[in-house]
């Protein structure tokens, strides 16, 4: 990227996270510039999902988390969400007994007024969801559930979008569609995004920043080009 370094929307300082007594994230420091897309790479169990959970306070942490100049590490999950942090979790976490439409409206609960307009936009991005808006989310296919998880995240008008494995379990064609939408959202609207993705090539393609976790430690923070230029990282995450 050219130009001056963007100001950080999210900054992690010496962040550690724990599953019971196990330290799953070890003193990670990382900044996300406003409007940037960061791909978070790492093997299974490296702590990627834990890092997203740490930002949303769904796991126990030590260290500091700053969002737009304010500390959020002592806040509960719902308060962090109301500050504009949207998390589309692994396994999607849709409200299975609610209809597609209700899923979207529930997500706009904290945001209030603009729900109609935002829902219309989500339906524009994902016409499949519009066709199925009266069906319970539990009846959707994997790809549709993933669309709904992303659509629900967009309903909160997020400043920071956290995506956990958006391509997981999807057919290649569905992956292509989903990433086209992601590209549109991130490029055109400048939503700061942190994306965890098994498919590293796909993620690096979308991203303008890249970070790599290994067993809970941050071992690389730079650009996608930097990952591609490093023989070790290329071998480990791109397989070439």
């Amino acid at each position, binding site marked *: 990227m050219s130009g001056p370094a963007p100001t950080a929307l999210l900054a992690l300082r010496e962040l550690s996270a724990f599953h019971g007594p196990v330290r799953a994230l070890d003193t990670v420091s990382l900044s996300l510039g406003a409007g940037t897309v960061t791909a978070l790479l790492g093997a299974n169990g490296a702590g990627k999902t834990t890092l997203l959970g740490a930002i949303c306070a*769904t796991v126990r942490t030590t260290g500091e988390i700053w969002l737009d100049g304010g500390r959020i590490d002592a806040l509960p999950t719902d308060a962090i969400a109301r500050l504009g942090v949207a998390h589309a979790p692994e396994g999607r976490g*849709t409200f299975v007994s609610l209809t597609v439409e209700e899923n979207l409206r529930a997500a706009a609960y904290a945001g209030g007024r603009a729900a109609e307009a935002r829902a219309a936009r989500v339906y524009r991005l994902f016409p499949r969801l519009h066709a199925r808006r009266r069906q319970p989310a539990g009846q959707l296919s994997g790809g549709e559930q993933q669309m709904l998880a992303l659509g629900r995240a967009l309903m909160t008008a997020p400043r920071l979008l956290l995506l956990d494995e958006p391509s997981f379990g999807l057919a290649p064609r569905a992956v292509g569609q989903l990433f086209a939408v992601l590209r549109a959202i991130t490029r055109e609207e400048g939503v700061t995004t942190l994306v965890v993705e098994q498919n590293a090539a796909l993620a690096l393609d979308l991203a303008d920043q890249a970070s790599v976790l290994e067993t809970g430690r941050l071992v690389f923070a730079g650009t996608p080009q930097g990952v591609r230029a490093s023989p070790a990282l290329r071998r480990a995450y791109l397989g070439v």
Partner: protein
Amino acid sequence: MDALIRQVLSGAALGGIYALVALAVVMVYQATRHVNFAIGETAMFSASVAAACFQAAAPYWVGLLAAVATAFVLGVAIERLLVERLERASALSVVVVMIGLLLVFNSVAGWLFGFTVRPFPSPFPPARTRYLSPHEIGVIAVSLIVVVALYGFLQHTRLGLAMRATADNRTSSRLVGIRAGWMLALGWGVASAIAAVAAMLVAPIVYLEPNMMSPVLIYGFAAALLGGIDSPAGAVVGGFLVGMFENVAGAYLVGPELKLVAALAVIVAVLMVRPAGLFGTRPVARV
């Protein structure tokens, strides 16, 4: 024939009361996967508060409001102060706490308001009718109104939607900014208030005393299980079925002494065939 119709209809009136209690139980179960055994006693306690209002010459609606408000606050407080803290404890711990609360409210109500059996006013005027007394007609009407109002609230308001979302997936609801803890507490409060309405309706029939709600609670649980513990519609249908069967069995089959046994035997039989209840979707795993 007239006598049978009368038995069925007056069973439906009792059934409306069971339906409300069952609905309260199901609401709490759906949201938190806990069974609120104390809900009958908080309802009785609230009706006793209403009786105290009546003793001070307050009009009926003041007593009703006082009872509903008391029950709502008790429900919210129990969730916030006790159940929430036991979120990570085993289901059995919550059962023990709930049974403890049942005894606490039973004793405190006796201590505050007395153990004597007292008459309790009905808001409906006495009159001679062919099948149902005005109170029985009123009970059926009020229970149906409460059911419809609750359905409307949950289905058609933003708050109701947030409560359903929280009941469906607590973590996800927090991730979209819903104050999940308060939604659960609100659910306990509303359920508790519904049970208080049931207590206000049953008290003129069985008279007010600390143990007034025990049989009602047993029938209410039976109705909830019969309909399906995770199905609000099932709870309502179950309530009416249990009430009508109980009354008919008491009059024609086994006599009033054994009608509770007969009703419960039928329910056990139904659950052996359909463990999830008539309208339930999953078998009960906890408690």
